[in-house]
């Protein structure tokens, strides 16, 4: 039976809408009948742990006189922004303050969209790093596509608040990289909350963490099992994609003709992989070396799925042409390297050079300290690029910590740039964000000021309460 992509997409949409109306599917045994022409089709809930995020109350706000980098590649000098109902109403020069708006004079200061980190483990590997908090990687078998990073997120990780002080408004939390298929990643609003559901970015697509190279083969080879080599890694991916393709076909057969094709047994691992094959779950793949990324691009074409982003792509600068052709982004550090063989060819210009040679590139942290200053990390990458003669504007480079990661996470219609209609995720910086001395003065999430350095407005996690240094930066 041939694949029916459109039908799957329609079913997915129905599932999401149904879940938003109360998530009752889980109460009905994860199965439910749809109405109309699909009435014979038995399906399952695609969103059993729905977002309960609600923006904090915000007021109509007029920010005036700033140098604005809009995240879409533009610089607006002496620019203004109007925020209304948590959304950006207008960005430009010479705007008029709406009546009754709160006015923030940002003369001499700088504005960017809220910082987005495409690779974080906050909540999954929280502070303090005690044994009980090692919740980031289910290292029990090479394929753990069935685990979801959100189910490990501890909302009381003090790292979330520190990241907010660095301007981070959205972050993507991933499982670790010891497995071929690590599990689902989750995109979060960086808001203090009691539950992870209250942090989940509404309707952000799920992601699947996969990993290349040394980590899976070290973990499982060390146990005398497969994968123990790079070729074992590839064989592992392929064997599991074959299973996932069969699973997807079985469901499609069932949905097409339920009377003659019984439903397959639900399998959480294959559910996630099927979501990738249908284009609904985005693949975020840990991959350092150029040759390995090229193999993975072929692998994705063999099974008909798209890799969205290579993370830690230390050698992206060697294959910008291949990345551009395959439409895969590279998420990189400014200057980490040397910690393992596949990180040996790190260069400082990787981000700038990959970008200038035509591929989509961005910064990422993978680190609870690095996430606090992604603006500085971009500044280093930019200055190293310029020093080798690459012509890249400040405004262009701001996209490396804003709109490019938004694109890679499938949320660019909602955030990542300062454009009318988008969520008002905004940072006011004390100085040019590419200066070491710049600090985030104010951070807005959905138009609500969640961080105000001068007035001591900042979240304090339950863990930090009554501990030494409570309230310190």
């Amino acid at each position, binding site marked *: 039976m041939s694949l029916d992509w459109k039908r799957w997409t329609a079913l997915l949409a129905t599932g999401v809408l149904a879940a938003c109306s109360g998530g009752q599917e889980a109460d009905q045994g994860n199965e439910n009948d749809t109405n109309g022409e699909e009435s014979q089709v038995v399906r399952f809930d695609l969103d059993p742990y729905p977002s309960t995020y609600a923006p904090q109350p915000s007021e109509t706000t007029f920010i005036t006189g700033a140098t604005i980098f809009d995240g879409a590649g533009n610089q607006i000098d002496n620019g203004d922004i109007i925020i209304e109902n948590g959304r950006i109403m207008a960005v430009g020069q010479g705007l008029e303050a709406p009546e009754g708006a709160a006015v923030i004079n940002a003369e001499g200061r700088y504005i960017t969209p809220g910082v987005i980190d495409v690779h974080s483990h906050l909540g999954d590997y929280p*502070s*303090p790093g005690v044994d009980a908090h090692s919740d980031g990687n289910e290292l029990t078998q090479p394929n753990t596509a069935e685990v979801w990073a959100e189910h490990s997120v501890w909302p009381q990780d003090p790292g979330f608040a520190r990241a907010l002080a660095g301007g981070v408004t959205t972050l993507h939390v991933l499982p670790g990289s010891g497995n071929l298929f690590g599990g689902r990643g989750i995109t979060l609003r960086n808001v203090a909350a009691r539950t992870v559901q209250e942090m989940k970015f509404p309707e952000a697509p799920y992601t699947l963490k996969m990993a290349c190279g040394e980590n899976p083969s070290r973990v499982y080879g060390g146990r005398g099992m497969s994968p123990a080599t790079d070729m074992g890694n590839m064989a592992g991916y392929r064997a599991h994609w074959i299973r996932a393709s069969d699973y997807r076909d079985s469901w499609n057969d069932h949905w097409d003709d339920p009377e003659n094709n019984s439903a397959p047994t639900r399998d959480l691992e294959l559910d996630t992989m099927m979501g990738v094959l249908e284009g609904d779950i985005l693949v975020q793949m840990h991959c350092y070396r150029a040759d390995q990324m090229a193999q993975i691009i072929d692998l994705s074409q063999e099974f008909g799925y798209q890799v969205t982003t290579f993370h830690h792509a230390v050698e992206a600068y060697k294959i910008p042409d291949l990345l551009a052709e395959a439409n895969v982004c590279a998420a990189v550090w400014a200057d980490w390297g040397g910690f393992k063989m596949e990180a040996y*060819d790190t260069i400082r210009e990787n981000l700038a050079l990959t970008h200038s040679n035509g591929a989509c590139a961005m910064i990422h942290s993978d680190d609870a300290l690095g996430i*606090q200053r992604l603006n*500085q990390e971009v500044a280093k990458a930019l200055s190293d690029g310029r020093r080798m003669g690459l012509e890249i504007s400040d405004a262009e480079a701001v996209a490396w910590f804003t709109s490019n990661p938004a694109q890679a996470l499938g949320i660019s219609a909602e955030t990542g740039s300062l454009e009318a209609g988008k969520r008002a995720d905004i940072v006011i910086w004390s100085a040019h964000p590419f200066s070491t001395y710049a*600090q985030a003065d104010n951070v807005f999430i959905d138009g609500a000021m969640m961080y105000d350095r001068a007035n001591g407005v900042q979240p304090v996690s339950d863990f930090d309460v009554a501990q030494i240094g409570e309230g310190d930066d």
Partner: protein
Amino acid sequence: MRTLVTLFAAGVALTSAATAQDLAILNGRVITNTDQGQVSSGGVLIRDGVIVSVGANIEVPDGVETIDANGGWITPGIFAPYTQLGLIEVALEDSTNDASASDSEFSVALDVADSFNPNGTYLATSRLEGITRFALVPATGSTLFAGSGALGNTSGGMDALFDTQSFVFADLSQSGAGSAGGSRSAAWAYLEAAFGDARAYPGRYASGHGDALNRYDAAALVDVVRGRVPLILEVDRATDIRRAIRFATDNAPLRLVIYGGAEAWMVADELVAAGIPVLMDPMRNLPSSFDALGSTLEAAARLDEAGVTIAYTTQSADGYFNARLLPQHAGNAVTNGVPWDAAFRAITLTPAEIYGVGDQFGALAAGYRADVVVWDGDPLEVMSAPIHVIIDGENSDMSSRQTRLRDRYADMDDTAPFAYRQ
């Protein structure tokens, strides 16, 4: 052993005198780290690898090569006080990682100089970022003693270490407590016993064993016990730092240095009174363990205000690949309240002073060794970079394995196969 070290150092000095150049660096903002302060436009004159004059109007003898700083910044070279440069090439590859030796019979007697490889590629990448001197610190293995450290330069030369057996490093934090048997009490009992062994060396070993250390380890600790070289203790928790201060007092003339010091700001006055310096990373601000709940970006400023002698590290990054990020760490200290001059001293003159070589390195003044960096802007700004790095009066090569790889892949339109490109 110190005598040998002194002879060795003198030998290096003679060698460098023979090969070093005369050099004048002109037309920059000069950061002297002396009473001379900052000279808004001036230069430095170098003869035979040593600085002879610094100021606004230095006289350059005929024939001396000049470097135009072009309005940039002229500073002392960066002195990284905690590194594993030349000890680790690829951290996860044990065959290239000599930082620690957890299966060794020995601990204090492990001399890091025997593991140092001046051809490690991160000497050059660090030099390109303005690091000219560094302390080479071994990592702990199975006991709380890591071994003896050394001092070096980033020239990449075979004689890059200019002082060896310069200090001993030990871990008295929670991880040290773990290796000592499971508690802080065990760690301090072990340290006390080890000092007893070193004090009783060699007599105790003529007829028997030490309480904690074997003969070789005890011998290696003698210079520490006698106060000839510092003991660097890794501790974070405020109470552990107080315990360390008491240990130093009880064991005078011990020269104690604290490494880590997440909560040092809580006992700053006691550190000042005891004259104990702290090697700390101003960017550590997470309660990464229950030892470090007091970690904060404000720690550096609080310590500075209290008058504690501080040198900065890259502890939150690493000591072999990203020790080169030290200026960024110092810059973030400034962002969080430390005066610029104090932050810059914390990565230049102060570390040199802590290691007892502050009369040779870390300042631009007559008589100092000519480690000079010319920057294209404020060295603590992340977008600045060195244009020239001068070590012992020699203008360094500014290429590295990284820059060569960069150049090989810069031009995607070039039709030459990559492996045939220079």
